[in-house]
């Protein structure tokens, strides 16, 4: 899973960076910079919390491309 911000919806409240400093930092204007990595399993609960607590619902936890590919091939095999 990867975190992705909708930059149009984001208003720079910065709560996500407080909840998940391991993966999210703020730029000098207060907008989040998100590490482009798969969220480690141990951090997933924190990532979900960050997503849920965003006041503008600008943050999402999305299946990364590799995972979508695996899911698609599982679906194709009928599993």
């Amino acid at each position, binding site marked *: 899973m990867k975190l992705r911000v909708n*930059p149009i919806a984001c*208003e720079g409240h910065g709560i996500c960076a407080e909840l998940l400093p391991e993966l999210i930092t703020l730029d*000098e*204007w207060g907008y989040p*910079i998100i590490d482009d990595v798969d969220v480690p399993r141990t951090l997933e609960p924190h990532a979900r919390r960050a997503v849920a607590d965003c006041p503008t619902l600008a943050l999402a936890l999305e299946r990364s491309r590799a995972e979508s590919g695996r899911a698609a091939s599982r679906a194709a095999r009928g599993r």
Partner: protein
Amino acid sequence: MNARPLAAAPSRPLPPTGEGRLLSGIRDDGRALSLNEHVATYGSARDGARAEAFVAELESSGLTGRGGAAFPIAAKFQAVAAGRRRPVVVVNGAESEPASGKDRALLRTLPHLVLDGAVLAAEALGAKQVIVAVSRGAAVEQAALAAAVAERARARVDGNVSLRVASVPRAFVAGEETALVHFLDGGPAKPTFTPPRPFERGVGGAPTLVQNVETLAHAALISRFGADWFREVGTESEPGSALLTLSGAVRRPGIHEAALGTRFETLVDEASGLTQPVSGFLVGGYFGTWVPADALLRLRLLDADLGLHGASLGTRAIVALPADACAVGEIARVTYYLAGESAGQCGPCVHGLAAIAEGMERVASGRADDRDRLARWVDVVRGRGACKHPDGVTRFVASGLDVFADEVGLHLRHGRCGARPSAVLPIPREVRNE
């Protein structure tokens, strides 16, 4: 295989030869070709490949989008066709890039060729609606299109495909495809967060093919004369010809057509040479890249060559900056304009581009050595907008600081470089006097 019917039918026009394919049919007086003149010059769209055969020809032609992103046209068709609803076709003629004029030139002179491409695309996709989006400022082009649409309606050449011309705002981001769709649906001409992209959900929620004017004109010729004809010029991986907008220190500025793979030196010769020594070329318009003059002239008109300098053809607007013009001042001025053209939606773009524009101004006036901060801002802002506006602007600024590093040094020491203050890079009038 059968012989091509084109050669067998003497009443049908022969394909344009050489590199001047789109432009070969233009009238000397620059007036739009009427429908009859158009058919006499290029033949009727009815005689070419249509529907599945058309898409197959497009795929083997290797034609890519000529709006700047160079996406393969056949793949875009397939993505739109994969949707469940009846698609819509949008001809993107916004051409909001100030250094580019090629799409307006086509709309003004060969409206029927562009409309042929759009209608063929609509028929191939089962679309019934074609919307031609043209900038509000382009009065001559709008009139030429309106006349062409009326002629086609009278002659009933487009079956059950209806054509409509839409007037779109002049803002720089208005030509971005999600902004265009947003506007055509009654919203502001500002980009939207993706996905969905227009090919999934566009105008009125329908899968939407948004295609550049020049791309559709090429497609209309490919339908008539075939993929093999298209590939007679260009290279294997970058086939065909392309329109260029040349400006700056060339003797014959304006719209030129050249085979992809042509050496830049040859292009300059065909524009009757340079008017004076040139310090650098801006390649690909204001989202493009600065390349030193001597380096560019050794390259060919190919993304493969330009990629070696971190550049790409983009919108194919090329500006030759005279050596006696002030490059740093030009870059600062255009950066200020581009920062103001942010849609104002995404924090990093709004604040980051404003910071970069102010930093460039301090560097140009020699008030502060902001080079390190500029490098950091460029890095921080890139990739963080809903659209590619911040990416394009940072490419323009970063390559400019790199190519004109010596001039930047002079500005920091003296507040000027000794070159004359200049305005070679055009800025639309409505924002110039801020």
